[in-house]
């Protein structure tokens, strides 16, 4: 452990009390399908979301991250209707204590700058995530 992360571990508030993780841990990536992005564009945006939420989870819930990485870093990609839909899901997630990350596009290609493209939820326990994402279809 580096000095900074050691100090962080002493001073940071606990994210959430966790005992044993005994179920599947997943990351769910919700794509804003209203933007009609191309496949490659979606892939890059989902890549952004996955990287950001991985780094975030490393800071806020390292044990969860370790478990997720060790169990094959399961990810699923689902369809969100539009930006409002993604924002509503983000609210639900935060009420459940699930980490979320929003990706806004830099607007170099295809869509207007600043568009909300992807919402990443987790990594977190399947049972928590399914409350929020059960109704969403796979992309």
């Amino acid at each position, binding site marked *: 452990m580096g000095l900074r992360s050691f100090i962080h571990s002493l001073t940071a508030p606990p994210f959430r009390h966790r005992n044993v993780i005994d179920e599947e841990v997943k990351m769910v990536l919700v794509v804003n399908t209203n933007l009609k992005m191309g496949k490659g564009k979606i*892939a890059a945006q989902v890549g952004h979301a996955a990287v950001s939420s991985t780094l975030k989870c490393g800071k806020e819930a390292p044990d969860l991250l370790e478990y997720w990485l060790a169990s094959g870093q399961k990810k699923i990609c689902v369809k969100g209707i539009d930006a409002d839909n993604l924002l509503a899901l983000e609210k639900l997630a935060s009420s459940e204590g699930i980490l979320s990350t929003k990706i806004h596009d830099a607007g170099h290609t295809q869509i207007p700058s600043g568009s909300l493209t992807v919402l990443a939820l987790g990594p977190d326990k399947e049972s928590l995530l399914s409350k929020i994402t059960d109704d969403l279809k796979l992309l």
Partner: protein
Amino acid sequence: MSSSHNETTMVLIARKDLKLSAGKLAVQCAHAATSCTLVAIKSKKRLLERWKNSGARKICLQVEDLPSLQILAGQAQSANLITHIVKDAGHTEIPAGTITVLGIGPGPRRSIDALVQDLKPY
């Protein structure tokens, strides 16, 4: 493609011949991006910071088939770039163990562009 000497980038190179669905492609690219980032945390921390602070540039490119992907992986490794090859777990769409995506970077944009300049965006 012109770029200043300290720009950084990551490229995600996917096999066109597998004809993956949008969601599947996205997840495979996300695996590559995450794994490359985790390698960078351990081995190239300053480069990773620079890449993140400049917007974590990522692009998704295509190759025709597996041999082209493997050649690029070899070239990237010889150029001392971070690489990660994603093998699918085979839960859906394609057989387990299929190589789907090659992630290169984060790394200097000039070195990466030199390798991938002939590839088309996916």
